[in-house]
């Protein structure tokens, strides 16, 4: 029982770490590159405009998809590793 408990706690903290990492990327592409950091990226040209504009209209959406699939894939491995899957 004690083992089960520490195993479950390890699984949960691994999950929270993973979520934190994913959320940092999520915030970085949307609030960061697309909005707040846009002036810094103004020098990088992309098809008639700059990289910040691309992130705002396409880059962030593509990254979001990447994050969700990465998380789902990683969590499936964690489920197996800690034997807590269905």
């Amino acid at each position: 029982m004690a083992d089960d408990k520490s195993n479950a706690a390890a699984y949960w903290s691994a999950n929270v770490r993973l979520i934190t990492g994913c959320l940092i990327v999520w915030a970085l592409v949307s609030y960061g590159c697309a909005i707040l950091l846009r002036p810094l990226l103004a020098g990088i040209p992309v098809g008639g405009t700059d990289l910040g504009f691309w992130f705002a209209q396409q880059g962030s959406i593509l990254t979001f998809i990447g994050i969700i699939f990465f998380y789902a894939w990683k969590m499936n491995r964690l489920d197996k590793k800690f034997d807590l899957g269905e």
Partner: protein
Amino acid sequence: MSQFAINLLFVGASFALYIGIAIWARAGSTKDFYVAGGGVHPITNGMATAADWMSAASFISMAGLLASGGYANSTFLMGWTGGYVILAMLLAPYLRKFGKFTVPDFIGDRFYSNTARLVAVICLIVASITYVIGQMTGAGVAFSRFLEVSNTWGIWIAAFIVFLYAVFGGMKGITYTQVAQYIVLIIAYTIPAVFISLELTGNPIPGLGLFSTHTESGVPLLAKLDDVINALGFRDYTADVDNKLNMVLFTMSLMVGTAGLPHVIIRFFTVPKVADARWSAGWALVFIALLYLTAPAVGSMARLNLMTTVYPDMAGQVENYDEAATSPILYEDRPEWVRTWEETGLITYTDKNNDGRIQVYNDSNEAFADTAEQRGWEGSELDVNNDILVLANPEIANLPSWVIGLIAAGGIAAALSTAAGLLLAISSAVSHDLIKTMINPRITEKGEMLAARISMAGAILLATYLGLNPPGFAAQTVALAFGIAGASLFPVLMMGIFSKRMNNVGAVAGMLSGLVATLLYIFTYLGWFFIPGTNTLANTPDNWILGISPLSFGAVGAMINFAVAFSVSSVTKAPPQEIQDLVESVRYPKGAGMAVDH
């Protein structure tokens, strides 16, 4: 065949398909009705979620918003997609593991409080009804334009169709109907965009065309667009915004609102496993992105097309934009699509300087007033409603009339699928959370389904009535729906999973303070209970606290919710052991069964 007959054929055929599916997948049990029997494949569910999510606002309005606002309105693109990241990691898998039918179910059980359940039901109903009104109005407009009936008839036809398949089909019918609706709407959106992109840039993929070279002028499309609208006194399409705080908060409000809207959350209760809920969120976003990556291209290309239609000299390589701007087309020479849309009143022309030509420019730009005067312009003469861009796209690009029929079917599919999903969320909150859990626990399964159908019919009537007599705040209501969901439901759902210490008092206090703060801020600027003229302060950026617009306040409301919930909870009693065990159990996928009744 006349355009009217073609529209009728396309809309009629798509309806026959939806109703056929609804009958084929008729719900036999409450489980079928609420969660489609719990056996929906993640990709199927992702597609249905996408249709559920993409409403008339996404299909019809968003490209127009992007066309007029350019970079500044990228918030809609990021906000309405970024919410899925939060949903996939912070809510969906755990709520699926919890395994009940509805959002108030989780809140009521997790916070061991019927008060919390009731507050959740109220938030859910208010958020969903306000959202349905917009869909009914949208469907009504689409019907009246394409079926050439009055707006009132358009709304009644929409109400009847929604009633048929939502009431008889339940979740099972809705899931498969929404898959069909997704396919119809994505095809309808993409085909005209591909042709327009080919015409302007030679690139068949609109999302790539946006960043390609404009064939006729040889400069990048976006640079060309900036040059053209700049010569007419408009801000650059790609111009940065000054009020970044507001932009960040607005994006965040849309994101947490997306994650907190109950009709999207309940879609994740329909998949067989916890892992499927995670994949399903990813697939939903893929299907949504197919439209959202095309939308900015549609918006910018439509704007360029419109401007070069009015100012033909600006279309090719231009040496001097000032000179090119002096020869707009004669009103007599306007293209056919301008004539057809003039009939609907959504494009209007007034020859202010009596020169028989059409001048379009930014007449509210004071810095540009001198230039306009030199050119002999006395005000912008063509008023184009943003919402027609997507619907008029096939006509602008001279596409065959069947594409117009397809667009009609697509727009209606977008509005109806969202309305149906919202109605389902409302009916399950009433019949399941209110009647079965709180009023009469001994109700039979048959009685519960009857109550669900009656409440759905009631919600349709209410929404239709409000859609017929719109209080005149379509855009605000949608923002209110997001504000309410984001400021009330999202934070407690998240704390219910991630904090074992969060107790009943904290959750109720958090929900109420988030909700009330958001409503107060919105009412102050938009009128108390949206009654026009009752607003305390004028709705202008100067009056906004720290420059935060009422539409962006949902994010602040959510922060207030979190802060109040944590402070109240820390000075009151910790939740009992069995609740802490419940939180523990939703965190691990092991042992998840199908979504179950009590």
